């Protein structure tokens, strides 16, 4: 080989040809119908050939048997043997699991079990919790089948969790537990519903999820019908997108008026043939069935909406002295500079104070000497929040107040405004303070500026934050080669985009059309425009203002230098990217 640099070496030559082949893609003349016809002919021939083989085979076997029979009849004329073919079931050893119909109730029950590999329950976004099944025949499914169907064998069960609760504390409410959890004060972040059965009895089955913070979730599984209800409390923690459950108390009662009684039980998880997730009860000997949970569409949930959590914790002071800090003494009566949670100011100090609230509130006996922080809390805001509003209610509680109490409000040590209390006769006043979101984690503080012996006593209630969110939503539609028409699913997606555009009049939609590099440049340019046009037709039909629509046909997309995944690259290039920007949402109190 000549080593002179001027001469083409092996690598240069190879690269030259690789490039040439990459460019030399032929026009797509493949035709499914032609191929299908050939395929059918081939299958027909194959069948005939197999049939002939079978005929010839049968002929030889019959001949062989005839010969043997002829031989046998000549040799052994009396005893005719009987061939016993026992059924396959006779040879199957059933698993020795007593009293559970062969279902999973192992000797060593796991105290805590994480749902492994399949399925994975993922928190996809803050406002949506989705149970997703990955790596199972490549499918992704939600609870979307209306049928109820049992685990039919031990092998069907992927994982199970077992109740670790021994004693249990009675509570009157379904959504309360002994740890102070009360669902009415939190927002439900996930709800799945389905039909199930346990033995012959049918149940409505529900799985609810509440966010407790720090990646902890409260979960309740309930099985309910006209005559009884079973409730499984569970604590769930999220790590690496995997939600693991620890089952707590299991309780049941006949009807709503009856008291709860503790019972025991297990929950089992399994995967259906289509990749569905089954969740079932498997702790009873009469268990024959299971259930399949169905996820309700967003916003269509009778039990509540799927929503983010109010970032201020215990803002109504219903949970007592939890989740906030204060420089004041806590509940030390007969001392100045102290705070107490009450539902009537007279319980704070009968002689000097009065005023009632809607439930509990924080009563403050102001300091005569110091400007101190009454209330402080670290708050985690929704990630797409760009602006917020801190709100609270204020009322003077001093019976003979001669001066108003002034409070300063800070967000991340930055002053955001002041509030002055009115006398208690005027009742509760609401104050709102706007703040810019500088960080996902922010500290809010309410300080008492008024010092002295008279009039700086105040009550605070219902502290909350309203978050303003900005968002952009994007999705892509993909196409078959040389095609630009939309299928039914794609049409419904575009229609849902129209819904969003109608709902948010300030929003703007951008369409970018692409084509793969097969065929020539001009045709691909035209193809990418045709793909956009199909979407524009729907938008125009829905009377979306033209000023709100931008589009550009980008034509063909060049391939990256990786010949192994050419098909995948081209497939990805046959698309239209849709982006809706400047959607503003509000998260209510």
């Amino acid at each position: 080989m000549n080593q002179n640099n001027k001469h083409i070496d092996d690598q240069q030559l190879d690269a030259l040809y690789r490039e040439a082949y990459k460019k030399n893609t032929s026009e797509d003349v493949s035709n499914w119908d032609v191929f299908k016809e050939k395929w059918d002919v081939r299958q027909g021939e194959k069948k005939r050939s197999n049939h002939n083989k079978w005929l010839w085979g049968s002929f030889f076997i019959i001949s062989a048997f005839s010969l043997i029979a002829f031989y046998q009849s000549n040799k052994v004329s009396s005893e005719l043997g009987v061939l016993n073919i026992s059924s396959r079931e006779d040879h199957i050893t059933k698993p020795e699991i007593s009293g559970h119909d062969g279902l999973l109730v192992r000797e060593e029950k796991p105290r805590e079990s994480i749902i492994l590999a399949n399925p994975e329950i993922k928190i996809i976004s803050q406002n949506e919790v989705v149970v997703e099944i990955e790596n199972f025949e490549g499918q992704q499914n939600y609870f979307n089948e209306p049928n109820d169907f049992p685990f039919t064998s031990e092998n069907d069960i992927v994982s199970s969790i077992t109740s670790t609760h021994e004693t249990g504390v009675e509570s009157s409410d379904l959504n309360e537990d002994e740890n102070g959890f009360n669902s009415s004060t939190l927002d439900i972040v996930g709800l799945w519903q389905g039909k199930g059965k346990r033995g012959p009895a049918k149940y409505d089955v529900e799985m609810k999820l509440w966010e407790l913070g720090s990646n902890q979730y409260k979960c309740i599984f309930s099985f309910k019908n006209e005559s009884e209800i079973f409730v499984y409390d569970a604590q769930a923690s999220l790590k690496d997108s995997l939600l693991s459950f620890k089952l707590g108390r299991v309780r049941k009662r006949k009807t709503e008026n009856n008291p709860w009684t503790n019972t025991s039980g297990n929950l089992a998880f399994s995967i259906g043939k289509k990749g569905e997730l089954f969740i079932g009860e498997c702790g009873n000997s009469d268990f024959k069935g299971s259930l399949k949970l169905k996820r309700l569409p967003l916003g269509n949930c009778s039990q509540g909406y799927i929503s983010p959590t109010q970032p201020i914790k215990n803002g109504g002071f219903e949970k007592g002295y939890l989740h906030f800090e204060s420089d004041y003494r806590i509940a030390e009566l007969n001392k100045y500079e102290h705070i107490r949670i009450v539902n009537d100011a007279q319980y704070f100090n009968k002689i000097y104070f009065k005023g009632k609230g809607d439930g509990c509130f924080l009563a403050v006996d102001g300091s005569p000497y110091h400007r101190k922080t009454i209330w402080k809390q670290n708050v985690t805001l929704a990630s797409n929040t760009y602006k917020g509003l801190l709100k609270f209610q204020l009322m003077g509680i001093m019976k003979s107040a001669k001066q108003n109490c002034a409070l300063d409000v800070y967000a991340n040590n930055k002053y955001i405004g002041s509030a002055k209390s009115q006398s208690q006769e005027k009742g509760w006043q609401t104050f709102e303070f706007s703040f810019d979101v500088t960080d996902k984690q922010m500290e809010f503080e309410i300080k008492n500026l008024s010092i002295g012996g008279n009039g700086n006593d105040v009550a605070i209630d219902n502290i909350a934050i309203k978050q303003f969110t900005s968002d952009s939503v994007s999705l892509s539609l993909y196409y078959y080669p040389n095609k630009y028409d939309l299928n039914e699913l794609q049409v419904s997606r575009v229609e849902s985009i129209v819904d969003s555009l109608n709902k948010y009049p300030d929003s703007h939609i951008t369409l970018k059309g692409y084509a793969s590099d097969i065929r020539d440049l001009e045709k691909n340019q035209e193809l990418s425009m045709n793909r956009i046009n199909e979407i524009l037709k729907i938008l125009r039909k829905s009377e979306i203002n033209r000023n709100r629509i931008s589009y550009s046909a980008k034509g063909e997309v060049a391939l990256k230098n990786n010949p192994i995944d050419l098909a995948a690259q081209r497939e990805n290039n046959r698309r239209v990217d849709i982006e809706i920007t400047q959607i503003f949402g509000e998260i209510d109190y």
Partner: protein
Amino acid sequence: MCSVFKLHRLVGEERFMSDRQIQHKLKNHDPEAMKYLYERYASEMLDVCRRYTKGQSEAMDIMHEGFFKVFENIEKYQNTGSLAGWIKRVMVNVAIDEYRKRSRKNEHHASYLNEFEKKHTGIEEEELIDVLRRGPSFDGIIMSDISTHELLESLDLIPEDYNVIFKLFVIEELGHKEIGKILNIDESHSRTRLSRSRDMIRTVLHHKALEKLKV
């Protein structure tokens, strides 16, 4: 205090079937999956087949034969690499089988020099060998603005035995061991042929470049 998130969120992208999904459906002879697979890969596989054939219709026949094999043997795909890679390998194997059949019938070019002389009369063997020794200038080839079509045409001018090895090694990126297995030859034999094929291509390109520059 029940809060309502008013923002309607569109979630996710439309997804195509994964390789495992396709395999699963094809095992059950799902006609939709067959159509999906064919339409997804046909154009790319036609390009692969064209590399080993002389014309479009022959390439189409090979591609169809390849897809027959894919559908009939889908259970043999083991998910270790991409399905596209596996299909491509099937196509290459079918194409090479055809090449072997042609080889047996001696339909391919009998001799590189004979064939080359037919196309480029007036070039003596000595001259070719001389060119081979000196090696064609890379700049010359680039400067002469040889088109993609001409480059590929040049490849067709060398004997098919060499041409195939060059394509398997350079375009399909197979190793000599694999090539040896496919073509039923020694690994060392494959190396020698590849080296020889590169030399032949250089020579052809050099002449092409000279011709163009003369014009």
